[in-house]
């Protein structure tokens, strides 16, 4: 803007919408006061990286995949340690959650008719490709385990079919247990392997949060659906996982730093995270203290599952928000660039003087 003596007679111009060029500042800025902003500049406040075009379906899948994985583990544990109710509940839940999760994933695609293109290749650099294969393998094992479960209740144990089922059942339980851990953990890598600042920087601890959350959801469902005499392992699993999740979440925020953990405390994401803490801790305590009362077990179980839903939606929304505001992209990048320059590194910057 050029100035001339007549400008003194001109009233200050109010700022137009969308003219905010200096990010990090408050909404409106009087253009007649041109104070350089010390923090950083942005292009009209536009985002730099794009948020994932994913909707609630994907957050729901994060929960369902975790529920399936945890249930697969509980089913295998129940089969091995002799808790038939846990085994049955776990098998039904894992298959149901995998099926619902698969539907959620396909619904979110831009071209749902091409969902099977996920199986077109095996690509280790793509957590989504790796995850598709993990999901398929887990689905296969737990589906077969469910068939075995149903078959065993329909046919005579001494018949030939019954013998076959008794032989194949343990390997199926082991298979679904072995694929349950990758199924619960890969979704953390899926989110972290993006340019969304809060997701990427959470990669050290997010897998711990997600596997604990998977255990919590599954043990919650077991508390709801299985008779209290058999839910002892589920209650213990809930207690251990709640402790791990709370600790991992705290540590995650500390490693990310105050700027990048900010989206976890604001807006809808912040509400989800707070709710998840209350529900998880409350559900775990309820399960441990009053788990032998049927009504209390159901209430605790529901709280644990709701807590897991909130954890997933909180982390999901926080990452999307962190991509939308250029502050979270530019600020931490400039800081790390300055740190490297201060340490004397002059040959690894994208901006060069020659």
């Amino acid at each position, binding site marked *: 803007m050029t100035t001339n003596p007549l400008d003194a007679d001109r009233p200050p111009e109010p700022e137009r919408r*969308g003219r905010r060029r200096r990010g990090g500042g408050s909404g409106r800025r009087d253009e007649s006061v041109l104070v350089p902003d010390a923090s950083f500049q942005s292009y009209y406040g536009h985002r730099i990286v794009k948020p994932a075009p994913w909707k609630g379906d994907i957050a729901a899948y994060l929960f369902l995949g975790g529920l399936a994985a945890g249930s697969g583990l509980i089913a295998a544990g129940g089969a091995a340690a002799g808790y038939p109710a846990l085994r049955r509940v776990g098998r039904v839940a894992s298959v149901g959650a995998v099926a619902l999760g698969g539907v959620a994933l396909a619904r979110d695609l*831009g071209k749902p008719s091409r969902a099977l293109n996920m199986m077109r290749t095996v690509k280790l650099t793509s957590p989504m490709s790796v995850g598709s294969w993990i999901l398929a393998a887990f689905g296969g094992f737990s589906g077969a385990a469910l068939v075995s479960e149903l078959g065993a209740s329909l046919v005579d144990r001494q018949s030939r079919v019954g013998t076959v089922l008794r032989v194949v059942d343990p390997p199926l339980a082991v298979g679904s*247990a072995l694929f349950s851990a990758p199924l619960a953990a890969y979704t953390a890598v899926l989110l972290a392997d993006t340019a969304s600042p809060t997701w990427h920087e959470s990669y050290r601890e997010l897998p711990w949060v997600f596997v604990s959350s998977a255990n919590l959801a599954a043990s919650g469902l077991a508390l709801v659906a299985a008779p209290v005499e058999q839910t002892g392992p589920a209650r213990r*699993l809930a207690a251990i996982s709640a402790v791990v999740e709370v600790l991992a979440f705290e540590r995650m925020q500390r490693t990310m730093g105050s700027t990048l953990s900010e989206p976890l405390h604001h807006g809808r994401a912040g509400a989800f995270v707070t709710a998840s803490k209350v529900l998880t801790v409350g559900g775990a305590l309820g399960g441990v203290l009053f788990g032998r009362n049927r009504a209390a077990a159901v209430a605790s179980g529901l709280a644990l599952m709701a807590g897991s839903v909130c954890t997933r939606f909180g982390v999901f929304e926080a990452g999307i928000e962190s991509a939308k505001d250029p502050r979270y992209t530019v600020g931490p*990048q400039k800081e790390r660039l300055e740190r490297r320059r201060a340490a004397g590194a002059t040959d690894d910057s994208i901006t060069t003087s020659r």
Partner: protein
Amino acid sequence: MGFWTNQLSGPTDPAVDAAWESREPRKGFFTDTSICIGCKACEVACKEWNAIPEDGLSLLGASYDNTGALGASTWRHVAFIEQTSERIEQARESGRRLVDLGMPSLRTSGASDPVTAGVGPAAAPPGTDPVADRAAAVAQADAAQALGTVPDFRWLMASDVCKHCTHAGCLDVCPTGALFRTEFGTVVVQDDVCNGCGYCVAACPFGVIERREGDETVKNVGVAQKCTLCYDRLRDDQTPACAQACPTTSIKFGDLDEMRALASERVTTLHDNGYTEARLYGADPHDGVGGTGSVFLLLDEPEVYGLPPDPRVTTADLPDMFRKAGFAGVAMLAMAAVSFLGRRR
């Protein structure tokens, strides 16, 4: 250089890594924003040639920029920035700081290094006489410095485009193989393979690729779309549409080695002229994405143009991510085991 080194970060030749047998030189752009006049011919030529659908006709109130940003249906985007003398001084200062840092002291690598070989004054394109140009430039610089003040206003205009990174996050994370590396070292989406999962959108450190929205009448709706560096034209030895249309040669196209050399020469000329704010973006193969296939000459900090100041391809950390997830997975099994091994009630 062994095949397994620098597959996720660092300098490398991406077309060779993608196992192309026919060796084409890596192609790229050099976008010299100092001579961009903001005519948007590149945007129009790109839309015309690639038959990209309309994606909004609104006034954005962002200077002359009514395009907004790169996206599924915008593969060239001209940014407009209005700056006062204060900002120009700051840009000049930050540029001077870069010069003082002496960046980049290009690592001394063997002449066999396919990436850094050929970068430098020796690789100046035939037909130009750098010595005579330099003398003229110095004379101009002296004249400019004698006049000597910072203007009270300037426009920055810059035509942004897909960076065709050496280590492309979008390509790495694509689960279907729809994104691929061409023989020219560029990154292209196969419209008929992409299932619209949207992972590439979140993975791009520059916010370039996007899933196309719209109703069923829109071409390639629901599919990830971005600049192809006119792959169809390249295969017929043609120049990409944007570079062909650019009236000021602000967008230059050619072998990437040549583009980097041109860029290096141009920034030196501008520095000699007293424009210390000039700097290159994407010319360093040691940066977080292994160098870009689109090199830019900027006149201010990258974030002023909406570019990330220190992008890093997310998959550079992927081995560590899988390792950490592996530990967590084992911990999950252990948690379950402990729960079931506990005393029976």
